[in-house]
């Protein structure tokens, strides 16, 4: 009985989590444009997707910004975390609190603040401003995911490396970074997803023809979201699933563990 309840509970949770995604996938094959009305099976939205200049352009910008901003913010965030880790007690607390602020701040405040900043600096809103904004809101998350790994690390390791003649930069590369790698990768992944996800900040900091997927989808609110978007999300989901499977296969087979 207990076993049954356990199973039942688990299934319920999975249904809850995956039902919306399943519906979305099913409706990407729907002949009719409307949600909730089945007009027959079709692949035309997939064909249309690859013909749609705007969607493909938005996809390109979304990934370019996500990739660049996650790389840049991971580099900056990791070094900041190492720095914060080695600070004195009081300054460390200060730095951490300052780091929490952007995380707790509502997106709309961050978005409008960044826009006002760019405008007052006479910067033209566009790709650059959007990339900077994404990097800015990603950095705190990277710091927060790297810090615990630094705390777990044995302090003596670095000292031992230095004692044995490693230069500080050599110790950093060969001792510290490999140990905190799982935290760095998690940070990069969080940054990547946050960037793909973001609408509010992107909306206010972009301009001159640069549109990402979330802006594109929201802007369709007036006319109803095109099923091509369902097709696109289905394909993106498939890519993620395949990637996960590949990673799982590697981690179970190989000796190198990827978090």
């Amino acid at each position, binding site marked *: 009985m207990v076993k049954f309840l356990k199973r039942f509970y688990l299934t319920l949770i999975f249904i809850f989590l995956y039902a919306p995604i399943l519906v979305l996938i099913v409706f990407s094959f729907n002949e009719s444009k409307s949600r909730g009305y089945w007009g027959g099976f079709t692949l035309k939205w997939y064909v249309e997707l690859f013909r749609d200049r705007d969607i493909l352009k938005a996809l390109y910008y979304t990934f370019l910004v996500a990739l660049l901003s996650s*790389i840049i913010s991971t580099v900056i965030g990791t070094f900041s975390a190492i720095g914060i880790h080695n600070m004195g007690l009081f300054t460390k607390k200060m730095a951490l609190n300052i780091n929490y602020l952007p995380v707790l701040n509502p997106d709309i405040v961050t978005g409008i603040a960044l826009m006002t900043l760019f405008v007052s600096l006479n910067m*033209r809103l566009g790709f650059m401003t959007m990339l900077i904004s994404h990097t800015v809101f990603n950095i705190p998350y990277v710091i927060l995911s790297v810090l615990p790994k630094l705390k777990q690390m044995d302090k003596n390791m670095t000292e031992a490396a230095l004692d044995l003649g490693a230069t500080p930069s050599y110790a950093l590369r*060969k001792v510290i970074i490999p140990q905190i790698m799982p935290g760095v990768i998690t940070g990069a992944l969080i940054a990547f997803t946050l960037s793909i996800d973001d609408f509010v900040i992107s909306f206010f900091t972009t301009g001159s*023809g640069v549109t990402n997927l979330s802006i594109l989808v929201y*802007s369709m609110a007036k006319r*109803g979201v095109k099923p091509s978007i369902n097709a696109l999300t289905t394909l993106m989901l498939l890519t993620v699933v395949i990637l996960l499977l590949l990673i799982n296969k590697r981690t179970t087979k190989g000796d190198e563990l990827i978090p």
Partner: protein
Amino acid sequence: MKRTSILLITCLFIFASLLVLPGCKQDKVVLNIYNWGEYIDPELLEKFEKETGIKINLDLFETNEHMLAKLETGGTQYDVIFPSDYVIEEMIKKDLLAKIDFSNIPNFRYVGDRFKNLNYDPTNEYSVPYFWGTVGIMYNTEMVDEEVDSWDILWKEKYAGKILMLDSMRDTIGVALKKLGYSVNETDPGRLEEAKQLLIQQRPLVNGYYVDEIKDMMINGDAAIAVNWSGAAMDIYWEGIENIRFVVPKEGSNLWFDCMVIPKTSQHKKEAEMFINFMLDPENAYQNSLYVGYVSPVTEAFERLMQENPEVADMDAYNPSEEVLDKCEVFIDLGDNRPLYNRIWTEIKVQ
């Protein structure tokens, strides 16, 4: 490790130069257009680029308010924007719009007289209509077997729980005002109180207040009657769904417009006017109306679409009768009366 870091740095440089380079070749004029998503035929943009050699950058917004917030901060260089009627009035008051030089827009003569000099821009100096429509009653012919021609049907006990109202302050209060025979721009507190009472009295019959969901709920048969914009009814028609009809009630209704305007900050006003002129060309207006599915104010385009799709001629969503149209009004910015409307709206919603 060294190699990878060098690789990474080189990659960054390449990316950075890729980003900077497109900014250098500024010999072509670039026109920045700010529109709703899926609200213009992309083929027309390409056609314009080919004909004039001007490059078009299309940016998208999702609500008038977001668009306004972004425009007011500055830093954007939009040349043509597509706001709705009441926002244009606000933009004129805030001095955000440039006066359009109509000598550069000869095609303006193709726009029907009914769509010129409207309330939001009385002297027609700042805006050119793009699409228009009405607010009306959408109903399912399988669930409603009487003739629908009046707002009264929204208060019939028979349809309790099967009525959907718009979650939009002006539109819904406007419906009640029109039913009472007043103007949609009424500011008299006594008359507004009457409208409020009417809507509170209707509350138990209403399934809910929605916006975009109405279309799907009607198609699914979750409701029998709904208040909605004519554009949504056109979408349903183009979908080929036949049991949903749309009627503009005989008491009259709201007439809405989405227009093209040029903000003061535009750096390419001449080219922006060329673009507006291009969109008013009957051939292009027809193509655009067919793509978007909404009704064009360009008379020739409007009539051509009717000739090629004869059914739409009888549809209130596309071609409401002159009589009814005469009773329809465009919203005026509420100005100082906005708090009064807000209060009434809250009182209705909390019921």
